[in-house]
């Protein structure tokens, strides 16, 4: 019978000449140093002690639940002041900026504080949301999707916005005119394919998306998909191999294996 977890390498270091027991091992691995060394020490210990393993899992879960906590819906504000104010409060709490119709941008200051003057704007729709760099995720979009007259949405460099979030944007189709996804690390061309619901879109920024496999080709396909929209993205010639032996052919991509 094969043991499920092969920790047989525990034997070898103990039998090596230089180390004596577990205390000796930690002398071998430098406690300070860069983060990678620190991570591998935690991993090293977690492989051998159940307590350390549980601690590491707990830290991971805490990190995940922090993001969840940031994206919780503010139902009490929604009930009292309406969806526009609740959405604005949600964005301001995350560190983004909001603009109501006919007013100026409302931003939190360096320390994250913002004035609560907008609480009286219950019937004024929110026109623009700047959520750049915020930790908004799939659950957090609930608050944004209630803003029915949203015209401009900036999700630049949001670390948790991915293809699933993009598929949720279709309720804003009748009003959304400007969308920016520049720099989101988890957005790929598969999520961009479901932006075709946004028929009112006039400006789309899909530059600098590291998860997109062929940026130039994707931009061309998105332009074809949304004919009345101006798409800012990678240069279409990027990724084309131009050499004396290879002529630039049509835009068919690589054939899947």
């Amino acid at each position, binding site marked *: *019978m*094969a*043991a*499920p*977890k*092969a*920790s*047989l390498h525990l*034997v070898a270091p103990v039998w090596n000449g230089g180390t004596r027991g577990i205390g000796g091992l930690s002398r071998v691995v430098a406690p300070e140093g860069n983060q990678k060394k620190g991570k591998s020490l935690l*991993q090293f210990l*977690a492989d051998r002690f159940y307590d350390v*393993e549980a601690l*590491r*899992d707990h830290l*991971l879960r805490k990190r*995940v639940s922090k993001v969840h906590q940031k994206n919780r819906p503010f139902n009490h504000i929604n009930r009292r002041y309406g969806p526009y104010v609740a959405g604005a409060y949600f964005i301001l709490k995350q560190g983004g900026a909001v603009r109501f119709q006919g007013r100026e941008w409302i931003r939190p200051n360096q320390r994250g504080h913002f004035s609560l003057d907008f609480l009286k704007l219950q019937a004024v729709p929110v026109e623009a949301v700047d959520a750049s760099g915020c930790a908004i995720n*799939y659950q957090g979009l609930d608050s944004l999707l209630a803003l029915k007259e949203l015209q401009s949405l900036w999700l630049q460099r949001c670390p948790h916005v991915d*293809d*699933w979030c*993009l*598929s*949720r944007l*279709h309720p804003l189709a009748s009003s959304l005119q400007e969308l920016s996804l520049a720099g989101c690390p988890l957005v790929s*061309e*598969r*999520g*961009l*394919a*479901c932006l*075709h*619901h946004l028929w009112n879109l006039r400006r789309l920024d899909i530059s600098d998306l590291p998860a997109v*496999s*062929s940026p130039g*080709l*994707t931009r061309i*396909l*998105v332009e*074809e*998909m949304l004919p009345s929209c101006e798409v800012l993205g990678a240069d279409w010639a990027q990724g084309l191999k131009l050499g004396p032996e290879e002529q630039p052919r*049509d835009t*068919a*991509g*690589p*054939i*899947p294996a």
Partner: protein
Amino acid sequence: MLRRTLLLGLCRGPLGRGLGTHRGGSILDRDGKMSEIKKKIQSILPGGDWNPLYDTSHLPPESSDVVIVGGGVLGLSVAYWLKKLEKPRGAIRVLVVERDHTYSRASTVLSVGGIRQQFSVPENVQLSLFSIDFLRNINEYLAVADDPPLDIQFNPSGYLLLASEKGAAIMENNVKEGAKVCLMSPEQLRNKFPWINTEGVALASYGMEHEGWFDPWCLLQGLRRKVQSMGVLFCRGEVTRFMSSSNLMKTASGEEVNLKRIHEVHVKIDQSLEYQPVECAIVINAAGAWSGQVAELAGIGKGPPGTLQGTKLPVELRKRYVYLWHCPQGPGLETPFVIDPSGTYFRREGLGHNYLGGCSPTEEEEPDPGNLEVDHDFFQDRVWPPLAQRVPAFETLKVRSAWAGYYDYNTFDQNGVVGPHPLVINMYFATGFSGHGLQQAPAVGRAVAEMVLEGHFQTINLSSFLFSRFYSGEKVQEHNII
């Protein structure tokens, strides 16, 4: 000279052999011997698999609480949920027996990988909804420390089901709760997708969220990795026999029933005559297209026809073809998974105007499931004409490749079988999904694990999918089967 002959004489014994090699062994040989000695010592120490008589590392354990027959996505999903829901941690020993570790004929990896919520049976919708939730949060469910996160390459492009006049009424009765589906008329369809020819289409149902397609191989590998880290044992072998015991019992109404209980599973090792009897408490039949054969081994269906003993598990192999073609003028990035009223379907694959598609043959033209050879004439005769009629751009296409896979086809009502058998009381089924097993696998795995651990379904009530419906004749007919 005399010494050498004496030594040769001694060499015939086991002791002599050691002496002989020691004498004959040079310094070059010593490294090989050192690693051999190290390996031997490591296997002797606790945790190793040393058997003083012979090497048993390839054999399954002699006993296991749960034996899961079949290591595809359904089997691994059941293993995952059993390990996740068990109390206390590490209480149950689970063994997954899979005869083909390359998964060359498994339905999971040959699948087109679609997931949808447009079903007519409410339980199917709930199963799909939970599964899509699982896939969205896959890195929370299947996280293994220090391994890279999984990317199942999900395309959220949705499903577009087209219905003719006949099917329009059925489509309107599709379950709506929980599924974000919008019904479209032919004009709306033409506005949205100008490349569709809406002749013959009375109604279209478009799923906008929670629907699309993904990479099933990635899900399988993710499950396998996680399940191994949770301590599930894997064995490369084939189940050839069940040893069971019978109890003659009387029901409340005085009827005599013969209840069987499987005690041992004989697992035959790949490419060998060796087999290992594994004592088990519970057997889970997740063998996919071959579940019918596994059920027969357990004696299900051996009785006079028309009785519960004589009711076989109606799951059989059905071969389906999938074709990959290239069409440069074809529909663009927004193409959903389109299903024609004729049963033909296609979806976009990648960015290079490649499309995957196929069609389910009718009962009369079912191909022989003996092998996985592809019939290209089937594409010319049955798949291409409706495709070209529905999407005129597909009149000029070029088939790049094709493959065939099996459906675990439930001939009774094309819906899954979940739960224990009424007579063989410790065999649980998780099979028979006829083409939509992959998209319901996470939820079905949880349901079977709940049934095994608690005795009843807790989150999704799948009592209409139990085996007893084959005897009582209550069909749970799903109208939207591709």
